[in-house]
């Protein structure tokens, strides 16, 4: 791995993927094990009830920000496509598939013509 310009070796790629996979699995599995004895705690129950809506909002804002990062010319396409997604979702009776397809198609079109 010291030779920066050479193609990475198969052993290195497999080891890196294995390490990344084990860390990801641990992050997903350990909290469930740790929370088991706390399941009855009112604090843990309240957090579990309050968290989902906010986590989804945070994910939405962060991926929106990622789409804009370093690309100021994309502000309007992002704003318009997000507006289309929201409008279609509210007007067409919350059919997720339709709203996502409409917003994405709108964005792809805007990037192509902008």
């Amino acid at each position, binding site marked *: 791995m010291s030779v920066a310009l050479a193609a990475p070796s198969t052993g290195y790629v497999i080891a*890196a*993927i294995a390490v990344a996979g084990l860390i990801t699995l641990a992050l*997903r599995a350990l*909290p469930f094990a740790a929370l088991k004895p706390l399941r009855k705690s009112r604090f843990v129950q309240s957090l*579990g009830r309050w*968290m989902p809506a906010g*986590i989804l909002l945070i994910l939405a804002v962060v991926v929106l920000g990622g789409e804009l990062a370093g690309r100021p010319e994309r502000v309007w*396409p992002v704003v318009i496509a997000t507006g289309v997604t929201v409008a279609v979702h*509210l007007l067409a009776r919350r059919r997720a598939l339709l709203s996502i397809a409409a917003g994405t198609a709108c964005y792809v079109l805007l990037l192509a013509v902008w």
Partner: protein
Amino acid sequence: MPRSRRAGIARGVADSLGVGIGIFPLGVALGVLVVQAGLPGWVAPALSIGIFAGSVELLLVSLLAATTPILTIAVTVLAMNFRHVFYALSFPLDRVSPGIPRAYSVYALIDEAYATYVLLPAGQLSSARIVAGQLLMQAYWVAGGLLGVALAGILPARLEGLEFALVALFVVMTLDAARSRNEVPSLLLAGLSVGVALLAFPGQALPAALIVYTALLALRFVLARGSDDGPDGDVSRDGPSGGSRDGGSGGAAGSATDGARRGDPGSAASGADA
């Protein structure tokens, strides 16, 4: 196969379609990226099966191509995937059968699976439904990657913007989660958290926002305990609406209180039924 399980699998298939439209094109992008980075084609499915976490896989392609030290990769993965720690607090893992189904459900707990199943009332969730949904989400991701590898040489120009499906997915999920007025305090605190995080830690906004958000909810718990209702008082008004057509797929347990607990039942994933 018992009828209830078949119905659960059918529900899982329907659940997976809504997020599949975001997952599949991103998978194609991953496959194309792998080839463009000069890595062998098998790296795409190896990433999608060995790790199965979209954003980290996309980043890992460039890290692998640059032969980044494994320790650096480990730290990066730890930081980027730290958000998963918070999913254990609300993901309905108790609805998944113990053993292999539950182990798979934990391994495959991507953002999209969390977003799909955290909003549904426990009464509508069965082990077959959740595991089928997650298996298909991974299938779209792996298949997209393979298609991307195959297309990489042929594609004339890149079709830009398909990754917006992920943005649209989370926007739609947030809208569905925000249907009940009871969610307003959580959404305000989350908005504050992500605003602070983007300003203070632009490079690590996601984990920072989740930590600030958790701290604010802990504060809310302390304050709510001082009031008459207690922290549980605010759920009683939030009755289920429109989820009854799902009756056959889940256990009878759960229903009203669990429906309220998880927010509004007629939401995200069942919206994909259409």
